[in-house]
């Protein structure tokens, strides 16, 4: 996975660029990595390796007179990687929570991520809810919400499609399981940006990032000493978020992870 060339050196153009740390969260195989890959390299890989831990990519984008450098942390989706997520979303100014429009359960997972972000992450974090894989659903059937009974069947079908759709994309029209209105209503209620995208054909991908850029208080970030850290109210906090007792926002006393070896 290559990345935008000019993003590598911190020295290059850094005078103007505002760094924004962005994290992608969501259930496994909803297309988080593909979304990033589309945004960063404008390409699509049918079989993208699952992300282990998290992948890191950068992309610059121009907004009016400012250059914004997105530092993107693309996290692993499998449930058991959940406990690692705080490591990546701490100090993040923006988060893209992705779900799969063909899989109702992925929206539930997305909601729980939003809940977690709103409680544990930087309080000013800009969250965008993004329904991916809209290319899989035919527009005519858009908006139909599937009953729970059919959900399992659809999941199976969905899996098949994901596996095979390189060959027979047209033959399959996967049923949409998450209606736009439903997700949008939720997003509005929870105060999130809302998009539907297709990483495969690029629909709406760039929009996600530009809208986020617009919503982030860039001035605030610029005025602070270190751009990338500005929004990080938690910046001075503990290293591994696992060690912060989230309920009270305190560090667990006496649990320094450094130098405690008894040898």
């Amino acid at each position, binding site marked *: 996975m290559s990345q935008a060339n000019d993003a590598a*050196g911190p020295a290059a153009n850094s005078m103007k660029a505002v760094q924004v740390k962005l994290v992608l969260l969501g259930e496994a195989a909803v297309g988080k990595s593909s979304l990033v890959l589309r945004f960063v390299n404008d390409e699509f890989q049918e079989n993208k390796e*699952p992300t*282990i*831990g998290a992948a890191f990519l950068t992309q610059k984008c121009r907004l009016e007179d400012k250059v914004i450098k997105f530092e993107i942390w693309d996290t692993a989706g499998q449930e058991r990687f959940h406990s*690692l997520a705080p490591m990546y979303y701490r100090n993040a100014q923006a988060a893209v929570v992705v779900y799969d429009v063909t899989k109702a359960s992925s929206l539930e997972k997305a909601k729980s991520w939003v809940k977690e972000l709103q409680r544990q992450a930087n309080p000013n974090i800009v969250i965008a809810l993004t329904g991916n894989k809209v290319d899989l659903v035919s527009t005519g059937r858009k908006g139909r919400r599937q009953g729970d009974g059919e959900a399992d069947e659809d999941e199976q079908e969905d899996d098949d499609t994901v596996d095979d759709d390189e060959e027979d994309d047209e033959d399959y029209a996967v049923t949409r399981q998450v209606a736009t209105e439903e997700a949008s209503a939720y997003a509005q209620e929870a105060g999130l940006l809302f998009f539907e995208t297709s990483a495969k054909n690029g629909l709406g991908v760039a929009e996600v990032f530009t809208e986020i850029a617009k919503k982030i208080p860039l001035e605030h970030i610029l005025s602070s000493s270190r751009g990338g850290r500005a929004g990080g109210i938690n910046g001075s906090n503990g290293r591994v978020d696992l060690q912060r007792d989230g*309920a009270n926002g305190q560090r667990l006393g006496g649990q320094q992870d450094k130098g405690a070896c008894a040898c």
Partner: protein
Amino acid sequence: MQSPPSSSRPMAYHLKPPPHVFILPTPCDQNNPLFDTLKSTENFLLQRTKASKSQFLNSFLGTIQNVFDTKQAPFRILFRRQIDAQALMIGEAETQKSIDQAWSWVQDNFVIGLQVLDDPQEKEEWVLTKIRSLVTRADKGTDDITSDEKVRSASRAFRQTFNVLPSERLVSYYSCSYHGRVMNQGWMYISENYLCFYSFMLGMETKIFLELKDIGDLQKEKSKRGVFADAIRVVMKDSQEYFFSNLFHRDETYDMLVQLTTLTMERLLRNTALEHAPGMSNGDDGETIKDVFSVDVENLDGNDSPHSPAPTTRPLRLGLEEQKRDNQFQLRFNLPTSEHMMEDSSATMVQGDKTDMFHGRLYMSESFLCFICVEADPCILVLPLYTIRRVERMNSRTAMYALNILTWHQMRIVFRLNGPITQCEKFCGTLKTNLKLQVRAMRSLKPFLATCFSEALLADRPDVAEKDSGLGWIFEFPGDPKKLKNKSKTKLWLQYFKDNGRNLTMTKVATFPKLIRVGLPNKLRGEIWEACSGSLYLRSMNPGEYTRLLKDNEGKMSLSLEEIEKDLNRSLPEYQAYQANQGINRLRNVLSAYAWKNPDLGYCQAMNIVTSAILIYQSEEQAFWTLNVLCDRLLPGYYSTSMYGALLDQTILEHLLEKTMPILSKHLKKVDVQLSVACLPWFLSLFINSMPLVYAFRVLDCFFFEGPKVLFQISLAILKVNGDELLASKDDGAFMDVLKKYFGTLDDSAFPNSTNPKARALTKFNELMLVAYKEFESVTPELVAELRRNHQLKVVHNIGSFTKRSQLRNITPGKFSKDEMSVIYDRFYSALFYGRQQRGGSVKQEARALDSNTFVSFLGSIAHWAQVEDDQMDNDDFRPTNGSPQQHRRRGSTSTTSTTRERRKIVGRHFISRLFERFDQNGTGLLSLQEVTTGLGDIIHGDLMTRMQLFFDMHDLNKDGTLSRDEILGMSESLLFIFRFDDGDSYLSAISNFIRNAFEFAEKVESPKKGSDEEALIDLGNPSEEDKETKDDESDNSAASERSVQETDTTTASEKEDTVTTADEPEIQMSLPSFRMVVLADEALEKFFDSGFSSSFKLLEPLDRQRGLFAREVFDSLLSEGRKLAGSIAGGIQNRNRSAVSSTVSKSSSGSTSTLASTSTSNNTTLDTSTSSSSADTKRDQTNEGEEHPNTNEDDEDEGDDEFFDDDEDGEGDDLLDEVEKFLTEFDLEGGAKKDLGLTSATDAADSP
């Protein structure tokens, strides 16, 4: 106890001996000057220490005993042997009560039997057998029956000092001192789940009770003055610290604690995992996992002493030590976990015709001979016994004892055993036995070797069937074989095989690591990985298991399988094989087979990457076993649902970085970069998707041979090599970029500007390996193991608190505060944690929910009254059925083991089980955290009305909206159960009031058989006669057995009473409104429902775990008293109903906050005036009651009770009729009031049919 000799007093006959008093008979001196003999018979003595009499002596002796661990129980029972002067101690106890019980049990059970027997020898045998069978049955699984007498007495002291379950086993105990405000010398007890300390110094008692699962850190320390390294600091999860010093065996204690906490952590991890058994088939309902302690319990044939032929348990400690030793043994030789070290001996090895001699140690397990030599010329040989063709004993001149072994590969190995001849004989004997057991495995050797490429290579036909080899054979291996010098490497290995054996019989000599480090040749790579990691042994010992796993689970689905399916196309997609079905299918097979084998782990992303890489060089079956070794041994906990292993190793890496590169470490902290964001993927996918494949495989070569320490070495080397650039990076983005760029240049020359062409040829990868091995030599497997031990507790607790946070986030807390929710969560999982251990570690898919048993312990941990004594976990008695307590009662009465204690337990458990059903909203038979939270919230945050409703509903068993007679009694029993720990006895009068009022307020149902209520009342009066009788009977009994008699009697009485009741049709019904009135009629009850019940749940205040012994003793009497009262009152209704009614009425008219009261005020004012005349009586009665009840607990209870029941007895004729008449007029009034209130609708309906 089943064949009792007939007793003169059947009523007093003890069916059940008191628990924990009897011990395995131990010889002792009957004329010990420290003991007074209290009672004696021909054969038995009851003695008490002199110490217990004098306060001073007690304190002084206590101190001495404490310091020297000679602490003896104050009471003991001896059996007088007639053979010699020595006596045998058969029981000891802390309290007079329990020893008295035991004494009378002994009298009842032995005296007559002993009279029959003449021969003293026979007598002794009979008594001892009986006692032994009693002890071993009652205390099965505890250390009370351990063969080590010292452990036994310590175990007893431990058990009596600390309130632990009887199944809790003491592991070890050490003398030490605890530094509190002052230094206390005492004893540290370590059991399976707890670390306890007890000291008794000059009258001051210090007790510390710590749960191993809450220990956050253990540190070896120097004692406070810093002179002796003899102290251990224990830091709890909540940062509370405890400092123990003067430990003579500090290291042993420390190791023991580390081992036990590790085991506890493992269980904890299973308990708090974010998801459960994802690899379990969707249809499976349960799976039993290995109990960590199961290996320790072995019944030895205890023929060591003539006095203990009964089966005994080996001290748990020995078991743990063995387990630890076996673990180390398995790790050292990469053996399967089924192997245990059986023999070891110092030995000298000579291979074939060579002259080299290796001096080292030879070990033997069930299926292996392992030799290790750590001298200048090191070598390791792991020889599976099934590869041995012949063993001969050589009578050589030099060696005393030599074994000449011929392997399958016609290789001759000679072991000279150095040691005493007997030991060598023993070694050979074991070898012979073990070899015989290997015959079956020997047969499958030939087909197995056919799958080893080394065989084909040596036979000079390197063309193995495609099916049994890696994908590389078909799709080519990554990298340019020429550049990799594949041919010359293969040649070197060929030579090595010829010299040192191959596959299963290969000896690893000094050149072996060198051959590994230069990189393995493609076709041999898979097999040598197997040989290095030990998966070769697993595969050869479990032929067919892989195909069986796939076949057995064909067509089944699980969460893991779905996850695997998603990732199949996303594993090394750039490698050709994974763009075709062949590769995909193999990957699917291996990953699913593993998920079926280890459903608790299932499938974790990253496993697909590692497995797809391995499959290039290994066949499916090879890869499957290698994956097993990876997940179980090399990367323990990496891919588990909590991924704690991966997190742990990240912590260790940070620690190592700080030690080896402090500047970089400091810099990273300064710019707030977390090392793991970069390094975690390296460890999880073994560099496979970080480095170019060719180099990742080179790392794998070393990793399989040298273990996880290689990962640390290489990671540190990467950081070191890029040190300058990393120091220049200012945030994690830049940090990541540096590393990513570096991995892209591994192919480049490390010294491109060097004039030396050899230096120029060195790639950056070569440089990396060099740095890794040279500069980080100090990172040894031992260091890694030690660091893992030191950091694991913290990591596990961090995961625990993370899990807790994320779970609590998804709980609707109701009105509970965050702190309260935190307590509920902790108690919930604590109950699960200990509950699972109790039940042998059975894990169900819905393992994160309480079942009826764990719910009992959960409730017991937040409410004192819910602590049901679990002397024996007789779970059969408790099922959340809809059966009434009467059913249980009757079952109890037919079985011979019915006692008050059990009855109380049944009532309690029944009450809790109904609470359980109420909490279980979706009726699954399991309570989730949410259900418990909601249920508790309803009780705690509800109001008086909802709680009354709750009680009403809970006791309305047939759900007809009214309480029948039985149901009212059930309610009163529940109340008695809940109140049983309350001080004083005001509650007794409250409950008696309740029963009285309940029967009064209840609507009478016209029974066709009965002419009038009156008749029914008289009919019901009978049981009170019974009561009277039994009381007389009781007073005749001796003081020693009085308590138990009383218990037995009341049980019988109440049962009789029950039979009477249930024989009749239910003749009363109480509706909810009348129940409310009854409750509001009594101040104590009202208070209970208003605040008492909800505040009995202690969430934030600590619950007093250590109930005094006293409380337990008085409890029995209180309960029997209460039940007697309940029985008598229920029977002969209301000799004092007047007062009851008046108090009710005045109560409700006094206008409590309830809605009921407010509507009834107007009506009740009239009532008030009509009954005001009796208010004086009421007062008198109440004060009388207050005086009477304390008496009933004492010896002179007869008086009080007689007075109490006098009315009953004498006034059965006219007086009672008078009473009833009065009662009836009042009842009419009352009924009228009710009608006015419009509360009769329900009762009317009930009356009409």
